[in-house]
């Protein structure tokens, strides 16, 4: 029988975790992160891609310690509660491709679902279109799920294989410590830095890493997932994960009010544009890709920490997608969508629909 109940998996557990994220993300903004970007998994992975030189958008280059913390925090939680499960082999290339287009869609909107919620909680009205797009994309994903779409079973693998992605994160941290940012310098050793723009805005390393690790730990325990929140609502009429997401928005809103970071409006919002249709469609593409891959970008990091090699590959896809997004002019900027952003979203939808329509299988019962 069930010997140890996971308190974080209860209704109050998930609400508490959403509330803690909602408080800590605006705090990270207060301590240095960019506007309405206390935490943004997509933006921060994009900044990591920039710091490594995978793209050369000069204003978005920094190894974000929050991302490292998310993975390591989840790894610690997974080991503490005997949930580390090294596994991989469920259509890896498909997950990589979904990661690429998830990132492209997110960068057309300018944010992952976490940031969409933080933008809303900071008064950015454009986020409403992004969130509606997210829900629309997830809704399409649920139609595929109902129709038998799935990427197949994972396989057992070595514990060391389950460690690889966490070790990659440790490697990034080592680079950041070895080649720290130097004020006014665009480069130190192998790493690129931003001297202006969002990439030049961040709290002290240990604060970012500490908060990231705490949230990684809590999110692993609670299975917090912004995509799952809407998917489970649409598919099963379940509001378990959704209650965490609502708590995030409410507490982020209150924290922003306290820090005087709430500025309602549409134009002039930080790292945002006002072209509603592409805010909607960019996030719809991302939402569909998350639904087909089984998790929002945050959840993919937490699963990667638990030893899931397929989730790790989705994250790698997102990092490569960030390279494409900035090298090809797909990413939006406060001025509007990039020169090739629109065709990229269309191609992304075609690829996701191709994956959704062609990868169906019904598993028989029995052992």
């Amino acid at each position: 029988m069930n010997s140890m109940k996971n308190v974080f998996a209860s209704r109050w557990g998930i609400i508490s975790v959403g509330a803690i994220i909602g408080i800590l993300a605006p705090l990270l903004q207060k301590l240095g992160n960019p506007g309405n970007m206390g935490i943004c998994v997509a933006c921060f992975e994009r900044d990591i891609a920039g710091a490594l030189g995978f793209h050369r958008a000069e204003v978005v280059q920094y190894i974000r310690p929050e991302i490292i913390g998310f993975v390591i925090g989840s790894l610690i939680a997974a080991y503490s509660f005997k949930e580390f499960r090294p596994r991989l082999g469920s259509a890896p290339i498909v997950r990589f491709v979904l990661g690429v287009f998830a990132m492209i869609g997110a960068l057309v909107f300018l944010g992952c679902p976490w940031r969409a919620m933080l933008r809303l909680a900071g008064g950015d009205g454009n986020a409403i279109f992004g969130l509606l797009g997210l829900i629309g994309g997830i809704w399409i994903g649920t139609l595929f799920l109902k129709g038998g779409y799935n990427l197949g079973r994972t396989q057992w693998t070595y514990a060391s294989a389950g460690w690889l992605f966490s070790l990659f994160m440790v490697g990034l941290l080592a680079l950041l410590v070895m080649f720290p940012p130097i004020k006014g310098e665009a480069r130190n050793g192998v790493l690129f830095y931003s001297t202006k723009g969002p990439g030049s805005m961040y709290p002290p390393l240990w604060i970012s890493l500490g908060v990231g690790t705490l949230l990684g730990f809590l999110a692993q325990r609670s299975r917090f997932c912004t995509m799952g929140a809407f998917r489970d609502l649409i598919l099963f009429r379940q509001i378990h994960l959704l209650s965490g997401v609502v708590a995030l928005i409410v507490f982020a809103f209150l924290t922003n009010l306290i820090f005087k970071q709430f500025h309602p409006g549409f134009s002039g919002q930080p790292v945002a544009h006002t072209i509603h249709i592409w805010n909607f469609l960019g996030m719809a593409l991302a939402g569909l890709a998350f639904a087909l891959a089984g998790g929002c970008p945050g959840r993919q990091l937490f699963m990667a920490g638990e030893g899931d090699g397929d989730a790790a590959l989705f994250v790698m896809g997102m990092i490569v997608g960030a390279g494409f997004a900035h090298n090809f002019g797909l990413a939006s900027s406060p001025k509007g969508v990039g020169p090739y952003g629109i065709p990229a979203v269309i191609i992304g939808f075609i690829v996701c629909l191709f994956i959704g329509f062609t990868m169906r299988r019904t598993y028989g019962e029995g052992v």
Partner: protein
Amino acid sequence: MIMEKVIDARGLSCPQPVLMTLNKIKSLKKGELIIKVDTETSKENVSRAAESQGWKVADLISEGSEYTITIKKD
């Protein structure tokens, strides 16, 4: 134990185990159903989904990294 009443969702990630469980619950309406999963998350999700449909988790066996969940409805 009748084989038809066992769902093997090992290696499948959510929402698959939940979808499979709910589909089977719909066709069975009542009785006993066994679901095998291999992550804690799937175990929690399947139990939560079953309970939301008025089924009870009658037994839960954990062996290594596998869980065998028995749910019942009279």
